[in-house]
């Protein structure tokens, strides 16, 4: 099982991660952060492969990714 962490105060709610995640595990939430943005939330989910695509695409470097197995990244 892999996981990601979204820094909710850094997230600007652009949504790029939501379309990039091959498993569509991320969506924009309904709460605003201190900057007034609706931030992204990760649906903690076993499906996450830790592929890090979400991290790569995030313009605000708001995502960190942990991978469980020693699989090589895409």
């Amino acid at each position, binding site marked *: 099982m892999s996981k990601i962490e979204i820094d909710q105060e850094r997230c600007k709610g652009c949504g790029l991660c939501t379309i990039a995640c091959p498993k569509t595990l991320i969506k924009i939430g309904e709460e*605003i952060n201190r*900057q*007034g943005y*609706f931030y992204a939330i990760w649906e903690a989910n076993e499906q996450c492969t830790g592929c890090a695509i979400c991290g790569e695409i995030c313009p605000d470097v708001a995502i960190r990714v942990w991978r469980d197995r020693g699989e090589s990244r895409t």
Partner: protein
Amino acid sequence: MNSDRFYYNIIVAGFGGQGVMVIGNLLANAAMIEGKYVTYLPVYGVEMRGGTANCTVVISSQQIGSPVVGKPHAALVMNLPSLIKYEPLILPSGLLFINSSLIEPKETYRKDIEIFSVPVNEIAIDNGSPKLANMVALGAFNQKTKLVQMNSLFVSLEKVLDERYHHLIPSNIKAIEIGAKFVQSLP
């Protein structure tokens, strides 16, 4: 600047992108329509992106000297950095209007001014137009201060908004009204 003459000034401040400039523009235009002298002075951060933005509006029955205001009668602050910057400057017994969606009212400190909090983002979101938080704030602020007539604000929308956005005028009016109503409904 005698007390028998009308003279009032406001600073509106927030993040770039929160639409604080439109608030100032609408206030100034509305006052002009009502026959007042006005100045509107915007201050941006770096060329355009990021940082904070604020504007100053002076409304007077006389010709206006300085558009720069050292000690405003009122400050409408939309985020925390603006609160920190402008709270200390407000004239004694002036008005501090805070957006409590992004600022905790407990973050204010002055005792000699009136502090008035409205959760404008929440109100806007609740009414299905999260992008019109600034109009909610304007409506609430003007309801509170009665600076200009609401109708002058509505009429000003057409002058202030770019033609591209004229189709949004009705929803802007609605947001202003919602802001005003929120204040009216306060105990």
